[in-house]
Protein backbone atom coordinates (compact mmCIF):
# COMPACT_ATOMS: atom_id res chain seq x y z
CA UNK A 1 0.00 0.00 0.00
CA UNK A 2 1.14 3.52 -0.73
CA UNK A 3 1.90 6.41 1.55
CA UNK A 4 -0.91 7.65 3.77
CA UNK A 5 -1.35 10.74 1.62
CA UNK A 6 -2.44 10.86 -2.01
CA UNK A 7 -0.56 9.27 -4.83
CA UNK A 8 3.04 8.39 -5.62
CA UNK A 9 3.48 11.59 -7.62
CA UNK A 10 2.12 13.69 -4.79
CA UNK A 11 4.48 15.22 -2.26
CA UNK A 12 2.65 16.16 0.92
CA UNK A 13 3.14 19.74 2.04
CA UNK A 14 1.47 22.96 3.07
CA UNK A 15 3.28 25.54 0.94
CA UNK A 16 1.61 28.42 -0.85
CA UNK A 17 1.73 26.36 -4.04
CA UNK A 18 0.09 23.40 -2.30
CA UNK A 19 -2.74 25.58 -1.04
CA UNK A 20 -3.43 27.34 -4.33
CA UNK A 21 -6.81 26.14 -5.74
CA UNK A 22 -6.36 23.28 -8.23
CA UNK A 23 -8.20 24.98 -11.09
CA UNK A 24 -5.89 28.02 -10.86
CA UNK A 25 -2.85 25.74 -11.07
CA UNK A 26 -4.36 23.83 -14.00
CA UNK A 27 -5.06 26.99 -15.98
CA UNK A 28 -1.58 28.30 -15.15
CA UNK A 29 0.00 25.05 -16.33
CA UNK A 30 -1.86 25.05 -19.64
CA UNK A 31 -1.06 28.73 -20.22
CA UNK A 32 2.60 28.11 -19.40
CA UNK A 33 2.83 25.13 -21.76
CA UNK A 34 1.18 27.01 -24.63
CA UNK A 35 3.57 29.93 -24.11
CA UNK A 36 6.60 27.63 -24.03
CA UNK A 37 5.52 25.81 -27.18
CA UNK A 38 4.84 29.10 -28.99
CA UNK A 39 8.24 30.57 -28.09
CA UNK A 40 10.68 30.45 -31.07
CA UNK A 41 13.38 27.91 -30.22
CA UNK A 42 16.31 30.32 -30.75
CA UNK A 43 15.19 32.79 -28.08
CA UNK A 44 17.66 31.22 -25.67
CA UNK A 45 17.49 33.78 -22.80
CA UNK A 46 13.69 33.46 -22.67
CA UNK A 47 13.98 29.72 -22.05
CA UNK A 48 16.44 30.45 -19.25
CA UNK A 49 13.77 32.75 -17.81
CA UNK A 50 11.13 30.00 -17.96
CA UNK A 51 13.49 27.62 -16.27
CA UNK A 52 14.34 30.07 -13.48
CA UNK A 53 10.65 30.64 -12.93
CA UNK A 54 10.05 26.91 -12.45
CA UNK A 55 13.06 26.66 -10.14
CA UNK A 56 11.61 29.48 -8.04
CA UNK A 57 8.24 27.68 -7.87
CA UNK A 58 9.96 24.44 -6.84
CA UNK A 59 11.76 26.34 -4.09
CA UNK A 60 8.46 27.84 -2.87
CA UNK A 61 6.77 24.43 -2.89
CA UNK A 62 9.45 22.82 -0.67
CA UNK A 63 9.36 19.75 -2.91
CA UNK A 64 12.93 18.37 -2.90
CA UNK A 65 14.53 18.80 -6.37
CA UNK A 66 15.78 15.18 -6.25
CA UNK A 67 12.16 14.04 -5.82
CA UNK A 68 11.25 15.74 -9.10
CA UNK A 69 14.51 14.72 -10.81
CA UNK A 70 13.82 11.02 -10.21
CA UNK A 71 10.39 11.34 -11.79
CA UNK A 72 11.80 13.17 -14.81
CA UNK A 73 12.85 9.71 -16.04
CA UNK A 74 9.54 9.46 -17.93
CA UNK A 75 11.09 11.86 -20.43
CA UNK A 76 13.87 9.44 -21.45
CA UNK A 77 12.30 7.95 -24.62
CA UNK A 78 11.64 11.48 -25.75
CA UNK A 79 15.26 12.48 -25.10
CA UNK A 80 16.48 9.53 -27.16
CA UNK A 81 14.33 10.63 -30.05
CA UNK A 82 15.61 14.21 -29.76
CA UNK A 83 19.20 12.98 -29.65
CA UNK A 84 18.69 11.13 -32.93
CA UNK A 85 17.49 14.22 -34.78
CA UNK A 86 20.94 15.79 -35.54
CA UNK A 87 22.02 12.51 -37.14
CA UNK A 88 19.05 11.98 -39.41
CA UNK A 89 18.10 15.55 -40.38
CA UNK A 90 19.38 16.98 -43.68
CA UNK A 91 20.71 20.41 -44.64
CA UNK A 92 23.98 22.24 -43.82
CA UNK A 93 26.30 20.21 -41.62
CA UNK A 94 28.45 21.32 -38.68
CA UNK A 95 31.40 19.56 -37.01
CA UNK A 96 30.84 18.76 -33.34
CA UNK A 97 33.50 16.68 -31.56
CA UNK A 98 34.53 15.18 -34.88
CA UNK A 99 30.94 14.23 -35.81
CA UNK A 100 29.21 15.75 -38.77
CA UNK A 101 25.76 16.83 -37.59
CA UNK A 102 22.88 18.61 -39.23
CA UNK A 103 22.52 22.21 -38.11
CA UNK A 104 18.75 22.09 -38.50
CA UNK A 105 18.71 18.80 -36.60
CA UNK A 106 20.66 20.26 -33.69
CA UNK A 107 18.32 23.18 -33.41
CA UNK A 108 15.31 20.84 -33.67
CA UNK A 109 16.70 18.59 -30.94
CA UNK A 110 17.34 21.59 -28.67
CA UNK A 111 13.82 22.85 -29.26
CA UNK A 112 12.21 19.49 -28.50
CA UNK A 113 14.39 18.89 -25.49
CA UNK A 114 13.97 22.25 -23.82
CA UNK A 115 10.23 22.50 -24.45
CA UNK A 116 9.66 18.89 -23.40
CA UNK A 117 11.72 19.25 -20.24
CA UNK A 118 9.97 22.45 -19.20
CA UNK A 119 6.59 20.80 -19.80
CA UNK A 120 7.42 17.65 -17.86
CA UNK A 121 8.89 19.62 -14.97
CA UNK A 122 5.86 21.91 -14.75
CA UNK A 123 3.45 18.94 -14.89
CA UNK A 124 5.40 17.06 -12.21
CA UNK A 125 5.30 20.13 -10.02
CA UNK A 126 1.53 20.30 -10.44
CA UNK A 127 1.19 16.60 -9.58
CA UNK A 128 3.52 16.97 -6.59
CA UNK A 129 1.61 19.87 -5.08
CA UNK A 130 -1.98 18.82 -5.84
CA UNK A 131 -3.91 15.82 -4.48
CA UNK A 132 -5.51 13.74 -7.27
CA UNK A 133 -8.95 14.36 -5.79
CA UNK A 134 -8.40 18.13 -5.78
CA UNK A 135 -7.22 17.93 -9.38
CA UNK A 136 -10.48 16.25 -10.38
CA UNK A 137 -12.52 18.83 -8.48
CA UNK A 138 -10.50 21.52 -10.27
CA UNK A 139 -11.27 20.02 -13.66
CA UNK A 140 -14.92 19.90 -12.69
CA UNK A 141 -14.85 23.60 -11.74
CA UNK A 142 -13.32 24.29 -15.14
CA UNK A 143 -16.46 22.74 -16.71
CA UNK A 144 -14.79 19.56 -17.90
CA UNK A 145 -17.63 17.16 -18.96
CA UNK A 146 -18.59 15.14 -15.84
CA UNK A 147 -18.27 11.85 -17.71
CA UNK A 148 -14.60 12.48 -18.43
CA UNK A 149 -13.98 13.54 -14.82
CA UNK A 150 -15.65 10.30 -13.64
CA UNK A 151 -13.50 8.19 -15.94
CA UNK A 152 -10.38 9.89 -14.61
CA UNK A 153 -11.62 9.33 -11.06
CA UNK A 154 -11.99 5.61 -11.74
CA UNK A 155 -8.50 5.57 -13.21
CA UNK A 156 -7.01 7.08 -10.07
CA UNK A 157 -9.01 4.76 -7.84
CA UNK A 158 -8.00 1.58 -9.66
CA UNK A 159 -4.43 2.47 -10.59
CA UNK A 160 -3.17 1.01 -7.33
CA UNK A 161 -5.37 -2.07 -7.64
CA UNK A 162 -4.07 -2.77 -11.15
CA UNK A 163 -0.41 -2.08 -10.34
CA UNK A 164 -0.80 -4.36 -7.34
CA UNK A 165 -2.17 -7.07 -9.60
CA UNK A 166 0.71 -6.48 -12.02
CA UNK A 167 3.19 -6.81 -9.16
CA UNK A 168 1.62 -10.07 -7.96
CA UNK A 169 1.74 -11.50 -11.48
CA UNK A 170 5.38 -10.43 -11.70
CA UNK A 171 6.24 -12.13 -8.40
CA UNK A 172 4.38 -15.28 -9.47
CA UNK A 173 6.31 -15.36 -12.79
CA UNK A 174 9.69 -14.84 -11.16
CA UNK A 175 8.86 -17.50 -8.57
CA UNK A 176 8.57 -20.01 -11.37
CA UNK A 177 11.97 -19.16 -12.76
CA UNK A 178 11.02 -16.56 -15.35
CA UNK A 179 13.71 -14.09 -16.36
CA UNK A 180 12.85 -10.93 -18.29
CA UNK A 181 16.50 -10.73 -19.49
CA UNK A 182 16.06 -13.64 -21.86
CA UNK A 183 14.43 -12.39 -25.10
CA UNK A 184 13.08 -15.89 -25.76
CA UNK A 185 10.82 -15.43 -22.75
CA UNK A 186 9.48 -12.06 -23.82
CA UNK A 187 6.29 -13.49 -25.34
CA UNK A 188 5.33 -14.35 -21.75
CA UNK A 189 5.29 -10.66 -20.91
CA UNK A 190 2.93 -10.00 -23.80
CA UNK A 191 0.64 -12.75 -22.54
CA UNK A 192 0.73 -11.33 -19.03
CA UNK A 193 -0.29 -7.96 -20.42
CA UNK A 194 -3.21 -9.67 -22.18
CA UNK A 195 -4.27 -11.39 -18.97
CA UNK A 196 -4.03 -8.12 -17.06
CA UNK A 197 -6.21 -6.44 -19.67
CA UNK A 198 -8.87 -9.16 -19.42
CA UNK A 199 -8.79 -9.12 -15.62
CA UNK A 200 -9.18 -5.36 -15.56
CA UNK A 201 -12.01 -5.58 -18.05
CA UNK A 202 -13.77 -8.17 -15.92
CA UNK A 203 -13.20 -6.08 -12.81
CA UNK A 204 -14.83 -3.19 -14.66
CA UNK A 205 -17.88 -5.36 -15.22
CA UNK A 206 -17.99 -6.40 -11.55
CA UNK A 207 -17.69 -2.77 -10.43
CA UNK A 208 -20.56 -1.87 -12.75
CA UNK A 209 -22.63 -4.71 -11.28
CA UNK A 210 -21.93 -3.49 -7.76
CA UNK A 211 -22.91 0.04 -8.81
CA UNK A 212 -26.17 -1.17 -10.35
CA UNK A 213 -26.91 -3.03 -7.12
CA UNK A 214 -26.81 0.26 -5.29
CA UNK A 215 -29.30 1.88 -7.62
CA UNK A 216 -26.95 3.38 -10.25
CA UNK A 217 -28.92 4.38 -13.35
CA UNK A 218 -26.16 5.56 -15.64
CA UNK A 219 -25.81 9.02 -14.11
CA UNK A 220 -23.58 9.87 -11.22
CA UNK A 221 -25.75 11.36 -8.43
CA UNK A 222 -24.77 14.96 -7.79
Amino acid at each position, binding site marked *: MGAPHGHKLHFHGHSWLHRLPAHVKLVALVAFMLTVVATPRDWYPVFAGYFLMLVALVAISHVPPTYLAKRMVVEVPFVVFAALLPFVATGPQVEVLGLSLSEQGLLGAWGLLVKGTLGVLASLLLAATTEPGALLAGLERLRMPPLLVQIMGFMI*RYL*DVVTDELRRMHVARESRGFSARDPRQWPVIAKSAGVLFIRSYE*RGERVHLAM*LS*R*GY*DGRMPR
Partner: protein
Amino acid sequence: MSVPVLDLQGVAFAYPDGHQALHGVDLHVHQGERVALLGPNGAGKTTLVLHLNGILMPGLGSVSVSGLPVTKENLLEVRRRVGIVFQDPDDQLFMGTVREDVAFGPKNLGLRGPELERRVLEALEAVGMAEYADRPPHHLSFGQRRRVAVATVLAMQPEVLVLDEPSSNLDPASRRELADILRSLDVTVLLVTHDLPYALELCPRSVILSDGVVAADGPTADILGDEALMKAHRLELPFGFDPRFASRP
Protein backbone atom coordinates in the same frame (compact mmCIF):
# COMPACT_ATOMS: atom_id res chain seq x y z
CA MET B 1 -47.57 -15.84 8.53
CA SER B 2 -46.16 -12.45 7.51
CA VAL B 3 -45.06 -11.60 3.98
CA PRO B 4 -41.58 -13.09 3.49
CA VAL B 5 -38.74 -10.62 2.88
CA LEU B 6 -37.42 -12.87 0.16
CA ASP B 7 -39.87 -14.99 -1.76
CA LEU B 8 -38.56 -17.07 -4.65
CA GLN B 9 -40.93 -19.38 -6.49
CA GLY B 10 -39.72 -21.84 -9.08
CA VAL B 11 -36.88 -19.59 -10.21
CA ALA B 12 -35.15 -21.08 -13.26
CA PHE B 13 -32.40 -19.39 -15.23
CA ALA B 14 -30.19 -20.23 -18.18
CA TYR B 15 -27.25 -18.10 -19.32
CA PRO B 16 -27.26 -16.90 -22.93
CA ASP B 17 -24.67 -19.59 -23.79
CA GLY B 18 -27.29 -22.20 -22.83
CA HIS B 19 -25.82 -23.16 -19.47
CA GLN B 20 -28.75 -23.80 -17.13
CA ALA B 21 -27.67 -22.46 -13.73
CA LEU B 22 -30.94 -22.65 -11.80
CA HIS B 23 -33.61 -25.35 -12.16
CA GLY B 24 -36.56 -24.04 -10.17
CA VAL B 25 -35.52 -22.63 -6.80
CA ASP B 26 -38.07 -22.14 -4.02
CA LEU B 27 -36.89 -20.11 -1.08
CA HIS B 28 -38.59 -18.01 1.58
CA VAL B 29 -36.76 -15.88 4.08
CA HIS B 30 -38.71 -14.09 6.78
CA GLN B 31 -38.07 -10.82 8.57
CA GLY B 32 -35.24 -10.96 11.09
CA GLU B 33 -33.95 -14.36 10.00
CA ARG B 34 -30.28 -15.01 9.36
CA VAL B 35 -29.98 -17.71 6.71
CA ALA B 36 -26.82 -19.30 5.31
CA LEU B 37 -26.80 -20.26 1.64
CA LEU B 38 -24.37 -23.16 1.24
CA GLY B 39 -23.31 -25.16 -1.76
CA PRO B 40 -20.30 -26.31 -3.76
CA ASN B 41 -18.62 -24.15 -6.40
CA GLY B 42 -20.78 -23.89 -9.48
CA ALA B 43 -24.00 -24.69 -7.63
CA GLY B 44 -25.57 -21.42 -8.78
CA LYS B 45 -25.23 -19.40 -5.57
CA THR B 46 -23.96 -16.24 -7.25
CA THR B 47 -26.54 -16.57 -10.03
CA LEU B 48 -29.24 -16.82 -7.38
CA VAL B 49 -27.92 -13.75 -5.55
CA LEU B 50 -28.03 -11.69 -8.75
CA HIS B 51 -31.72 -12.57 -9.08
CA LEU B 52 -32.52 -11.04 -5.71
CA ASN B 53 -32.06 -7.47 -6.92
CA GLY B 54 -32.96 -7.87 -10.55
CA ILE B 55 -29.49 -7.86 -12.11
CA LEU B 56 -30.63 -11.15 -13.63
CA MET B 57 -34.28 -11.86 -14.36
CA PRO B 58 -35.57 -15.43 -14.05
CA GLY B 59 -36.48 -17.27 -17.23
CA LEU B 60 -39.28 -18.97 -15.28
CA GLY B 61 -40.72 -18.37 -11.82
CA SER B 62 -40.82 -15.21 -9.76
CA VAL B 63 -38.90 -13.25 -7.15
CA SER B 64 -40.54 -10.89 -4.67
CA VAL B 65 -39.00 -8.73 -1.99
CA SER B 66 -41.40 -8.00 0.89
CA GLY B 67 -44.28 -8.54 -1.48
CA LEU B 68 -42.86 -6.32 -4.24
CA PRO B 69 -42.23 -8.33 -7.42
CA VAL B 70 -38.79 -7.86 -8.97
CA THR B 71 -39.63 -6.27 -12.31
CA LYS B 72 -38.09 -3.56 -14.47
CA GLU B 73 -40.44 -0.90 -13.03
CA ASN B 74 -39.54 -1.69 -9.41
CA LEU B 75 -35.78 -2.00 -9.83
CA LEU B 76 -34.72 1.03 -7.77
CA GLU B 77 -36.95 0.13 -4.82
CA VAL B 78 -35.91 -3.53 -5.04
CA ARG B 79 -32.25 -2.48 -4.99
CA ARG B 80 -32.90 -0.36 -1.93
CA ARG B 81 -34.57 -3.28 -0.16
CA VAL B 82 -31.91 -5.85 -1.07
CA GLY B 83 -28.37 -4.82 -0.19
CA ILE B 84 -25.71 -7.02 -1.77
CA VAL B 85 -22.16 -6.99 -0.45
CA PHE B 86 -19.92 -8.48 -3.12
CA GLN B 87 -16.95 -10.66 -2.42
CA ASP B 88 -14.15 -8.32 -3.50
CA PRO B 89 -14.41 -4.99 -1.68
CA ASP B 90 -12.34 -3.40 -4.47
CA ASP B 91 -15.28 -4.04 -6.79
CA GLN B 92 -17.65 -2.33 -4.42
CA LEU B 93 -15.58 0.67 -3.36
CA PHE B 94 -14.84 2.84 -6.35
CA MET B 95 -15.02 6.43 -5.15
CA GLY B 96 -12.20 8.66 -3.93
CA THR B 97 -13.14 8.58 -0.26
CA VAL B 98 -15.00 6.24 2.08
CA ARG B 99 -17.61 8.92 2.73
CA GLU B 100 -18.40 9.44 -0.98
CA ASP B 101 -18.60 5.71 -1.48
CA VAL B 102 -21.06 5.16 1.36
CA ALA B 103 -23.10 8.13 0.09
CA PHE B 104 -23.33 6.71 -3.45
CA GLY B 105 -26.26 4.37 -2.76
CA PRO B 106 -28.43 6.78 -0.73
CA LYS B 107 -27.72 9.52 -3.30
CA ASN B 108 -29.10 7.26 -6.00
CA LEU B 109 -32.21 7.01 -3.84
CA GLY B 110 -32.50 10.79 -3.98
CA LEU B 111 -31.22 11.68 -0.48
CA ARG B 112 -29.32 14.94 -0.07
CA GLY B 113 -28.07 17.28 2.65
CA PRO B 114 -28.17 16.52 6.39
CA GLU B 115 -30.31 13.40 5.94
CA LEU B 116 -27.68 11.94 3.60
CA GLU B 117 -24.90 12.91 5.98
CA ARG B 118 -26.71 11.23 8.87
CA ARG B 119 -27.24 8.00 6.90
CA VAL B 120 -23.58 7.86 5.94
CA LEU B 121 -22.36 8.40 9.49
CA GLU B 122 -24.83 5.89 10.96
CA ALA B 123 -23.76 3.25 8.48
CA LEU B 124 -20.07 3.89 9.14
CA GLU B 125 -20.62 3.83 12.89
CA ALA B 126 -22.50 0.53 12.62
CA VAL B 127 -19.33 -1.06 11.17
CA GLY B 128 -16.94 0.91 13.39
CA MET B 129 -15.36 2.85 10.51
CA ALA B 130 -16.63 6.40 11.18
CA GLU B 131 -13.13 7.76 11.83
CA TYR B 132 -12.01 6.65 8.36
CA ALA B 133 -14.69 8.61 6.50
CA ASP B 134 -12.28 10.88 4.65
CA ARG B 135 -9.67 8.27 3.74
CA PRO B 136 -9.39 6.84 0.22
CA PRO B 137 -10.63 3.21 0.29
CA HIS B 138 -7.46 1.80 -1.27
CA HIS B 139 -5.44 2.92 1.73
CA LEU B 140 -7.44 0.77 4.15
CA SER B 141 -6.66 -2.79 5.17
CA PHE B 142 -8.61 -5.59 3.52
CA GLY B 143 -10.76 -6.19 6.62
CA GLN B 144 -11.53 -2.48 6.87
CA ARG B 145 -12.48 -2.33 3.20
CA ARG B 146 -14.85 -5.24 3.68
CA ARG B 147 -16.49 -3.43 6.60
CA VAL B 148 -16.85 -0.26 4.52
CA ALA B 149 -18.40 -2.39 1.75
CA VAL B 150 -21.03 -3.51 4.28
CA ALA B 151 -21.60 0.14 5.25
CA THR B 152 -22.14 1.19 1.61
CA VAL B 153 -25.14 -1.12 1.56
CA LEU B 154 -26.36 -0.41 5.11
CA ALA B 155 -26.62 3.28 4.23
CA MET B 156 -29.50 2.35 1.91
CA GLN B 157 -31.35 0.86 4.92
CA PRO B 158 -32.03 -2.45 3.21
CA GLU B 159 -34.59 -4.94 4.42
CA VAL B 160 -32.27 -7.82 3.69
CA LEU B 161 -28.49 -7.87 3.63
CA VAL B 162 -26.96 -10.38 1.21
CA LEU B 163 -23.29 -11.13 1.77
CA ASP B 164 -21.21 -13.08 -0.75
CA GLU B 165 -18.38 -14.90 1.03
CA PRO B 166 -17.96 -12.24 3.72
CA SER B 167 -15.26 -14.14 5.63
CA SER B 168 -13.01 -14.89 2.66
CA ASN B 169 -9.44 -13.55 2.92
CA LEU B 170 -10.01 -12.17 6.41
CA ASP B 171 -7.64 -12.90 9.26
CA PRO B 172 -9.34 -14.55 12.28
CA ALA B 173 -9.65 -11.30 14.23
CA SER B 174 -11.24 -9.41 11.30
CA ARG B 175 -13.48 -12.41 10.70
CA ARG B 176 -14.72 -12.32 14.28
CA GLU B 177 -15.14 -8.52 14.22
CA LEU B 178 -17.29 -8.82 11.13
CA ALA B 179 -19.38 -11.54 12.82
CA ASP B 180 -19.92 -9.23 15.82
CA ILE B 181 -21.01 -6.44 13.48
CA LEU B 182 -23.42 -8.68 11.58
CA ARG B 183 -24.94 -9.94 14.83
CA SER B 184 -25.39 -6.38 16.08
CA LEU B 185 -27.41 -5.32 12.99
CA ASP B 186 -31.17 -5.42 13.14
CA VAL B 187 -31.63 -6.69 9.60
CA THR B 188 -32.48 -9.90 7.78
CA VAL B 189 -29.32 -11.59 6.49
CA LEU B 190 -28.62 -14.06 3.68
CA LEU B 191 -25.06 -15.28 4.02
CA VAL B 192 -23.55 -17.02 1.00
CA THR B 193 -20.50 -18.92 2.19
CA HIS B 194 -18.15 -21.90 2.10
CA ASP B 195 -17.12 -21.12 5.65
CA LEU B 196 -19.34 -23.63 7.47
CA PRO B 197 -18.29 -22.74 11.03
CA TYR B 198 -19.15 -19.13 10.18
CA ALA B 199 -22.58 -20.24 8.96
CA LEU B 200 -23.12 -22.15 12.21
CA GLU B 201 -21.95 -19.21 14.31
CA LEU B 202 -24.19 -16.64 12.61
CA CYS B 203 -27.14 -18.39 11.03
CA PRO B 204 -29.70 -20.57 12.84
CA ARG B 205 -30.99 -21.74 9.45
CA SER B 206 -29.16 -23.03 6.38
CA VAL B 207 -30.11 -23.81 2.81
CA ILE B 208 -28.04 -26.02 0.53
CA LEU B 209 -28.11 -25.08 -3.14
CA SER B 210 -26.80 -27.86 -5.35
CA ASP B 211 -27.03 -28.22 -9.13
CA GLY B 212 -29.43 -25.30 -9.32
CA VAL B 213 -32.01 -26.57 -6.83
CA VAL B 214 -32.55 -26.29 -3.09
CA ALA B 215 -31.29 -29.64 -1.81
CA ALA B 216 -31.84 -29.05 1.89
CA ASP B 217 -33.34 -26.41 4.15
CA GLY B 218 -33.24 -26.63 7.95
CA PRO B 219 -31.49 -25.76 11.19
CA THR B 220 -27.77 -25.22 10.50
CA ALA B 221 -26.62 -27.61 13.22
CA ASP B 222 -28.78 -30.44 11.81
CA ILE B 223 -27.59 -29.86 8.25
CA LEU B 224 -23.91 -29.71 9.16
CA GLY B 225 -24.37 -32.82 11.31
CA ASP B 226 -25.91 -34.88 8.49
CA GLU B 227 -22.84 -36.57 7.03
CA ALA B 228 -24.61 -38.27 4.12
CA LEU B 229 -26.29 -35.04 3.05
CA MET B 230 -23.07 -33.07 3.31
CA LYS B 231 -21.15 -35.64 1.31
CA ALA B 232 -23.78 -35.78 -1.41
CA HIS B 233 -23.31 -32.05 -2.04
CA ARG B 234 -19.54 -31.77 -1.79
CA LEU B 235 -19.65 -29.95 1.53
CA GLU B 236 -16.96 -30.66 4.09
CA LEU B 237 -16.33 -29.38 7.56
CA PRO B 238 -12.84 -28.11 8.38
CA PHE B 239 -10.54 -30.65 10.02
CA GLY B 240 -11.34 -31.16 13.68
CA PHE B 241 -14.58 -29.20 13.61
CA ASP B 242 -17.61 -30.97 15.04
CA PRO B 243 -20.87 -28.97 14.94
CA ARG B 244 -22.25 -31.01 17.85
CA PHE B 245 -19.60 -29.65 20.19
CA ALA B 246 -19.28 -26.15 18.77
CA SER B 247 -20.42 -23.56 21.27
CA ARG B 248 -22.86 -21.02 19.94
CA PRO B 249 -23.26 -17.47 21.15
